[in-house]
């Protein structure tokens, strides 16, 4: 499989503090790839660099063979990377459908076409029946799925999910895992997720990268990862006890 | 023109600037703590100026002495305003808070217009034309008193926030709203106190300014804007910044009035504002925005 997103020797410091240090990995096209790590491991920093919120101090980020590091968030989206926010940010006074139409308008020629696309996405994410509600009236699990729907409506080649399961109950987590798996299976969409919830990662990801103190300490299948001594010590050990 | 003229104008601008600074200090304190921009600031100052005019014309009370009672009146007004109207707006969007204060400003300006009419009022003290000769300089006595009084009030406010337990509590609110709630501070009351203090500053400044310029109701919006120019130039939320900004704008206006035409002087203040907004949005003494 070709590599869709390539992170090469990426580092980022904030006022002298190293948040991400010399991280390298590749996300194969069509895969579901997870980055995990304890709090403060640099996951969100890494995510924000891919999404264009800020540029790395050194190293390169390439998407579909082209450099994207240092590009603006809107350009990165136009190139085919959709993202969600860890703390969901729907447009509160717009309806669920209008929220998704905003995303769909990126690739669709006009509003009716975007509406059609938005409704398809809303069906995929079990939000179709709630499409006329104001986004501010939704429950947290619904808002999390709206966030995914809005990003999907931009028709990305790569979907970046920032702790999309955080704060959800296990049944809700399973529901969103099923939806994501189905979309990946049906459309071949590549997904990169940053996660804290191991349950989701184990059943969803085909490959996992473990970050600790800003550095990549292990990479492999979920099954292999949990047996790595470094991982157990630094992350799972602490969390599991 | 001889150099003394420039120096005289500069000193005059500096003294007026100190009064401006005190006025802006009120705005800065309110914003720094309550995070609400007081769009009725200049209007509150014209109210104070009219109070001084009335006290002077009715009872021959010197505005410099009346500074304290006028500041007290404005304190009560500010406290009541924050308690009654603004506190419920703390969590509302910025533009909503802004409209609330615009409404208050409109009512103040036009209320004053109804009561006092559109004509300019002034205060003629016995020392209005006195001046001191300091070497080659001739310094206007009124402005000197006003400038010194402004420094005194500002110093008292600094001391309050630095040393008084209440001042420290207010600073705690400003730094961390939730934290202040958690440790049991009555944030709403502290906000009201802060707004009252800011209003008191502008009240004191108004009492001094009435010695320097004539007051009309329409002065309100212009001085609101001037207070913003000063506070943004100095750094929104920075107390020394307000004074530095006030002096800078005061001197700029004075110099522009001398070198160009007095009617164009505020243009230079706006030019400074635009440059600061574009190139140093945190202001001269403001902290770097994250």
């Amino acid at each position: 499989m070709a590599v869709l997103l390539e992170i090469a020797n990426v580092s980022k410091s904030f006022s002298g503090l190293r948040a991400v240090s010399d991280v390298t990995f590749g996300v194969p096209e069509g895969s579901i790839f997870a980055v995990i790590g304890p709090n403060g491991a640099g996951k969100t920093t890494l995510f924000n660099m891919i999404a264009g919120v800020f540029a790395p101090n050194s190293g390169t980020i390439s998407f579909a063979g082209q450099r994207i590091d240092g590009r603006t968030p809107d350009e990165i989206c136009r190139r085919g990377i959709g993202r969600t926010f860890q703390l969901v940010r729907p447009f509160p006074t717009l309806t669920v459908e209008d929220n998704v139409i905003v995303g769909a308008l990126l690739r669709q020629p006009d509003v009716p076409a975007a509406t059609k696309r938005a409704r398809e996405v809303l069906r995929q994410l079990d939000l179709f029946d709630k499409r006329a509600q104001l986004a501010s009236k939704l429950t947290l699990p619904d808002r999390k799925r709206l966030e995914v729907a809005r990003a999907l409506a931009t028709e990305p080649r790569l979907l970046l999910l920032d702790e999309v399961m955080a704060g959800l109950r296990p049944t809700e987590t399973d529901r969103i895992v099923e939806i994501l798996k189905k979309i990946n299976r049906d459309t071949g969409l590549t997904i990169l997720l940053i996660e804290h919830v191991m349950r989701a990662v184990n059943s969803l990801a085909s490959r996992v990268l473990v970050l600790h103190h800003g550095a990549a300490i292990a990479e492999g299948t979920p099954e292999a990862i949990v047996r790595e001594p470094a991982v157990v010590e630094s992350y799972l050990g602490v969390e599991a006890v | 023109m001889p150099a003394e003229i420039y120096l005289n104008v500069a000193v005059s601008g500096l003294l007026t600037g100190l009064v401006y600074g005190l006025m802006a200090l009120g705005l800065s304190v309110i914003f720094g703590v309550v995070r609400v921009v007081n769009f009725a600031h200049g209007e509150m100052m014209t109210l104070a100026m009219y109070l001084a005019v009335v006290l002077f014309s009715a009872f021959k009370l010197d505005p410099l002495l009346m500074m304290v009672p006028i500041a007290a009146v404005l304190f009560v007004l500010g406290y009541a305003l924050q308690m009654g109207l603004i506190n419920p707006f703390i969590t509302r969007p910025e533009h909503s808070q802004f409209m609330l204060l615009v409404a208050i400003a409109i009512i103040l300006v036009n209320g004053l217009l109804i009561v006092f009419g559109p004509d300019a009022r002034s205060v003629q003290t016995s020392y209005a034309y006195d001046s001191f000769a300091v070497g080659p300089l001739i310094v206007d006595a009124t402005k000197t008193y006003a400038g010194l009084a402004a420094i005194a009030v500002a110093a008292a406010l600094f001391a309050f926030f630095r040393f008084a337990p209440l001042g420290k509590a207010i600073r705690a609110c400003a730094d961390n709203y939730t934290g202040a709630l958690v440790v049991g501070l009555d944030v709403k009351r502290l906000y009201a106190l802060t707004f009252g203090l800011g209003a008191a500053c502008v009240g004191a400044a108004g009492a001094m300014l009435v010695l320097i310029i004539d007051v009309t109701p329409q002065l309100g919006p212009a001085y609101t804007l001037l207070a913003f120019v000063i506070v943004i130039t100095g750094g929104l939320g920075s107390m020394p910044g307000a004074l530095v900004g006030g002096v800078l704008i005061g001197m700029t206006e004075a110099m522009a009035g001398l070198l160009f035409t007095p009617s164009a002087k505020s243009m230079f203040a706006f030019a400074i504002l635009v440059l600061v907004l574009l190139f140093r949005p945190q202001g001269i003494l403001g902290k770097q925005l994250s």
Partner: protein
Amino acid sequence: MRSLLLDGVSRRVWIALGVTLAVLLIAPLIVNDYLLTILILILYFAYTAQAWNIMMGFAGQLSLGHALYVGLGAYTTAALYVHFGLSPWLGLPVAVIVSALTGACIGFLAFRFRVAGVYFAILTIAFAEFARIGFDHFGWVNGSSGLFLPVANYTQSDLWNLRGKPVMFYYVLLFFTVAALALCHALLRSRAGYFWQAIREDEEAARSLGIDTFRYKMYAVVLSAGMTSVAGVFFAFYYNNLFPEQVFSISRSVELILAPVIGGVGTLIGPIVGAFLLTGLAEVIWEFLNAFGFDPPGAKQVFYGICLLFVVVLLPDGVWPPLSRALGLAERPDAPDDKPEA
């Protein structure tokens, strides 16, 4: 494909709009001169309210200096008419271009240098003040001594030169107000409308969806500035005199935003309803005070202030959203719609 103009408007709304328009069309035949001047004032504020609403209500950019664009429109067409006898209809495109370019400059500076929120609002006031002082010293338009348009006692209305009786201005303004409503309606349902609302709600989230927020904010400013300047043309030819002190003053800018805020920022009908309520009520109160021989300057404005205070405290979304629900004319009902899928 359904037309942008017709989409999403219920029959009840059409009837309500139709009846209102019909009443407004025949109004000059019924009302006296005094009421006509008030209707003209109402339409003037209804028009400027809609123009301002594009920038703040749709795109979320708070401008407090919109008197700048009214003034530029007024001065451009008036000066061209006075100096070259150019018809205001030919001066209009020039005025729109001047205003739009000015808006573009302010927008460019503000958005490129990330001046936002309250700072942006203050920047817009500062530019209006710049213009006020600048025009005070601008000899070609007579500076602070004011620019006057020649007036005569008109027996006939000259539409081409906008010289004539109030009733002509009334119909011109009615036309522009209706045109602005149609435009706003179409805009809100267009790509730009969706993107503007996204920017208004959450700019960072909007960018993450690929929206070039700088570009769309610029569109909003340029369009709003250009539209506002049309009101200036009317202002100049209706009042026949222009003083920088009055035209560009902060209170003019504040006056412009009262109607949309009271009616409902971001709604289509709200700004118009706001203009009717505010100006209409103010006149009633004014008459009432007059009847008691009490008519100090500023009384009307105090009333505006109290209205604004009342609405801001009690109806944070403005008068129109709750009113429209009560009348069954809501622009966006909360219940799921039963429209067939597109």
